[in-house]
Structure formats: C-alpha cells, structure tokens
C-alpha cells in the first residue's frame, strides 16, 4: 500500500528555497507580541495604583507601529498562498477575539478606570490581530503558491 507518509520528502523542496525571500513577518509579529505583553505586565503590576501609564502607552504605540509595518511587508509579498493565509487568519481571529473578549469582560466587570481600560482595550486589539497574523503566516509560508 502506498500512502502519503511513504513519500515523505526528506530533502528541501521549492517551498524551503522560497523561505529566504520572505520578509521577517514571524519575527516582527513576535516582537509586537513581546511589546504588547510587556505593556500588559506594566499595567497589571500597577493595576490599582496611581502610577504613570506612559511606559505602557509607549509599548502599545511601538507594538502598533511594528504591527502596521509588518502588515505592509506582508502585503508586498508577490507570490504567496493567500487563500490559506486568509482561511487560517479568519478562524484564528475568531478564536483570539473570544479570548480577548473574555479578558475585556474581566476588566469591564472589575470597573477598571477609563484610561487604563482604554489602554487595555488597545493592547487586546493588537493582540487579537497580531497572533492570527502570525499563525496564518506560519502556515501559508510552507504552502505551495497557486499559479
């Protein structure tokens, strides 16, 4: 019997060769994630305090800038498995909107002060878009490009 696993390719193929030409989307998305998480840690550490929000704002803005730059880089890839990318992105976005929604619910339920809530919401929005983009890119980069 011949099956798909019989014919596993042990050697690099054309998809591997294409990897070098792709922009560093995964690394930039991980950087965005790290910036947002760092901002979230700062906010959580000063949750009930009257500490300055400036470091968290700077981290959120930096995360947003990297995310936008990453999206631009991604959109400029000439040949890519966009159908797979958007299929994964859509489902992952749905899942991460649910997770972000639960966290937003916690903050609203706890009567988080408006300035902190706004900043938390921005960070959750960045998180909910960035992670699906990272997941979708990580899958689509290894898919064959349609003719």
């Amino acid at each position: 019997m011949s099956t798909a696993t019989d014919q596993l390719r042990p050697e690099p193929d054309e998809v591997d060769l294409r990897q070098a030409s792709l922009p560093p989307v995964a690394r930039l998305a991980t950087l965005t994630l790290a910036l947002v998480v760092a901002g979230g840690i700062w906010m959580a550490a000063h949750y009930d305090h009257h500490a300055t929000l400036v470091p968290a704002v700077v981290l959120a803005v930096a995360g947003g800038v990297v995310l936008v730059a990453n999206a631009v880089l991604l959109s400029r890839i000439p040949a890519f498995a966009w159908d797979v990318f958007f299929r994964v992105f859509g489902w992952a976005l749905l899942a991460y909107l649910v997770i972000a929604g639960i966290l937003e619910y916690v903050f609203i339920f706890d009567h988080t002060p408006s300035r902190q809530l706004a900043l938390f919401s921005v960070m959750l929005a960045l998180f909910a878009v960035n992670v699906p983009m990272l997941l979708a890119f990580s899958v689509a980069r290894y898919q064959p490009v349609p003719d």
Partner: protein
Amino acid sequence: MTDTVVTDTVVTDTVSTAEVAPPDSVAPPDSRESPPDARGGPPPPLEFSIVPVRGLPIVAILLIGLIVAIGTNNLWALDFFHVGGGGLWTSIDLFLGLIIGPILGRLSIPARVEFTVRFMPKMLLIMPTLVAMTLGAGFQLARHVGNLDASYPHHGWLVASYIIVGVMAVIALGLLEPANLAVLFELKKPRPNGERIGRLMKIFVYTAGITGVMQIATIFIMTFLASR
C-alpha cells in the same frame, strides 16, 4: 536563534530515520482502510481534522464556566479554574517537553507522523483553553482577594510571576502554536516534507519543555503566596 539551532540539529536525524523506516509500518491512522494504490497514482493525503470539532463543545462549556466564575466572583470556582488549569498546563508542558519529546525524537518519521496526526489537533484546543482558564481566573482571583493592591506585602512576587507568564506567553504564541499549526497543514499535503515536519516538531517540543520548566518557577511563587 532557537530556529537555527533546532534546524541544525534535526536535518541529519530526520533524513537518516526516513531512510531506514520500514515501508509497511507507515500507514497513517486514518488511511489503513483505504484501497491499495494499485494503479500507481499519487498517494492519498492524510485525512484528519485540524481542529477536532467534537472537542469544541467541551471548550465552550469550560469558557462559559470561566465567565460565570468571574461574573459571580465565586472563590471556589475561581480557584478551580486557576489551580486546575494551571496544574494541567504545567503538567502537560513538562510531560511533553521532558518525556514525550525525547521519545518522539527517537521514532521513525512515519511513527512521528502517526503520533502527530492524532496528538497535535487535540493540543490546538487544549492549550489555549487551559491558558485562558488559568490567566483569566488567576487575575480575577488576585483582584478578589486583594493581591493586586500595592499594599499587598508580596506584590513583588506577584509581578515576578507576571513576567514569567509573559515570557511563556511570547514563547507559546510566537513559536509553539505556529509550529503546531504548520505541522498539521504540512501533513495535509499529498507529499508532506519529513524534514520540515521534524524541524517544526522539535520547535514545538523544545518550546513546550522550556515553558514547562518556567512553569516550575511559577509554581514556586504561587505556592509561596498561597501559604502566606
């Protein structure tokens, strides 16, 4: 850097095991009843569900339970979701990274594929659910019992746990989950790339092990705080 190290160590391993794999042992779990490929056509792709649909109602029940626990501020329910979720998260990470990972590394590629096809879709549902349970209930629990206040004497320890969890989140979402998904989509191809699957599986197993070890630090802090 992690990617490079993993890639360097796995290429030789996966190629050599592919060469010695017995051909009769490679039937994937869901294709054993397929008709033989007597006409010499292309092999059928593996048939499996990337997201195990039957597990979605369980995930929904757990998330609804989490929302109710937060909404009612029920101390037992918050403890249940935080301790139960965190314990399972830690155990699975450690077991995967330190027990399953080394075993998986010594299997032939077909055996790895067979394991992966059955295992990885379940992880796609289990891990994000456990993370949401642990962190959501944990934050609310800390707020409810007053641990988030500046006056809490061990506030510094709590912040240390935030940092550890933050690093784990970046590793899990930046490396582990993308590798998990990429493996599943690779296995859906008519001719999956064994070298690529081996490389991605190593990233998955290594990062699970790293986060598992970091979880031990979290357990130290959490048990310390709970005993004060």
